[in-house]
């Protein structure tokens, strides 16, 4: 019996692993970039605050969301439960558990500041039309980008492809 229970638990895990093996994830809030960026004119750096100052652009803190959603600026009924979620996080002093999809391998040093601020590369160069998407991204960055994208872009712009600038 014990073996059977263990076996079925193992099977469940295997099924779960299969279901997740395409690498798609669901964010805690189905954030709509289109409404925020295209319709209401927010800039990327308004929510991804460290994009010009740090290596990582950062995911929005709950206080950033509350900067607007503290008041009832949203009339959409569909968004109401998610606004409630944000307010609950704010009240409890917890952060929204965003799933960070855009993490690079540890041996790569990628800096948003270096690309977005110093070189002035537009966010869409790597992130595509994310400002027009109505659902949050679901795929990790390594499924959409690899080192050849970096190399090609560097070549196009005549930037040095020295290993030491990005690897460690």
């Amino acid at each position: 019996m014990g073996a059977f229970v263990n076996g079925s638990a193992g099977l469940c895990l295997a099924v779960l692993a299969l279901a997740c093996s395409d690498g798609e994830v669901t964010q805690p809030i189905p954030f709509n970039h289109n409404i925020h960026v295209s319709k209401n004119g927010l800039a990327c750096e308004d929510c991804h605050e460290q994009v010009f100052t740090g290596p990582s652009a950062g995911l929005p803190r709950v206080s950033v969301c509350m900067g607007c959603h503290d008041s009832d600026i949203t009339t959409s009924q569909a968004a109401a439960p998610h606004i409630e979620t944000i307010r609950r996080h704010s009240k409890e002093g917890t952060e929204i558990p965003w799933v960070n999809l855009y993490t690079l391998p540890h041996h790569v040093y990628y800096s948003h500041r270096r690309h977005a601020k110093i070189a002035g590369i537009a966010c869409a160069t790597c992130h595509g039309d994310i400002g027009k998407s109505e659902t949050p991204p679901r795929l990790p960055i390594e499924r959409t980008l690899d080192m050849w994208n970096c190399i090609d872009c560097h070549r196009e712009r005549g930037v040095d492809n020295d290993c030491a600038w990005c690897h460690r």
Partner: protein
Amino acid sequence: MPRWGMVIDLDRCTGCQACSIACRTENNVPACGDRNAWKGRAIFWNKVVAVRMDGHGETAHGPHGAAAAHSRPRFRFLPMPCMHCERPPCTMVCPVRATTKNVEGIVMQVPSRCIGCRLCQAACPYSRRYFNWQEVSFPGDLGQALNPDVALRTLGVIEKCTFCIHRFQKVREQARAEDREIREGEYVTACVQACPARARTFGDLDNPSHAVAKLAQSPRAFRLLHELGTGPQVVYLHEGSWQDDSGLPVRDLLSKEKEDHG
């Protein structure tokens, strides 16, 4: 374009090993365990080699051996990071370009690209390259105190001193953001920062205003095995002739190092 280099004053070095420890902690250098240490497989990106100076060589008599009773044992310390050669033999033999010479003079190793053929280890005349003979492990709680800026290596790849490249990347970015050159002392390696005797100096060898460039011109300056034509960017300072003084010529010392961990 800077050419980063280091000057190590052997007359100041007390052999305290602070540089070795600083380097290990900064670069997440793994511990290899007793068994591998006995086989000479311990990894030291920066190794302080003790050379016995009283004419008895390093191994003939231990410091407490019979010879010690007659002549007071004298040791000299030779701290050895990667020499970051101008013409590095290691990069020339790498079949997968996992190790390259950077335009600013740093010999870079990308362990994630390495296939572990160890040609570079054989090619390096200074034995400054180390192979990971086992999975990375850290004793006790040390595994929870790793530097997040340095990637861990895996089993079967070569690793070496990178002049703390992760520090350089950050400093370079800051300088670029402020649209200026990197200032002297802004980018230093962990070993230089830790040296209590200030035996180490780091900077741009091509910039005459940097202390390191002045020291490299000193009459006390010499480079290890310079006759090989590798052109080390780590320059040593020592009063008198290192090789005549030591009793064990530096070439023998280095070949012994090679036997130990090769």
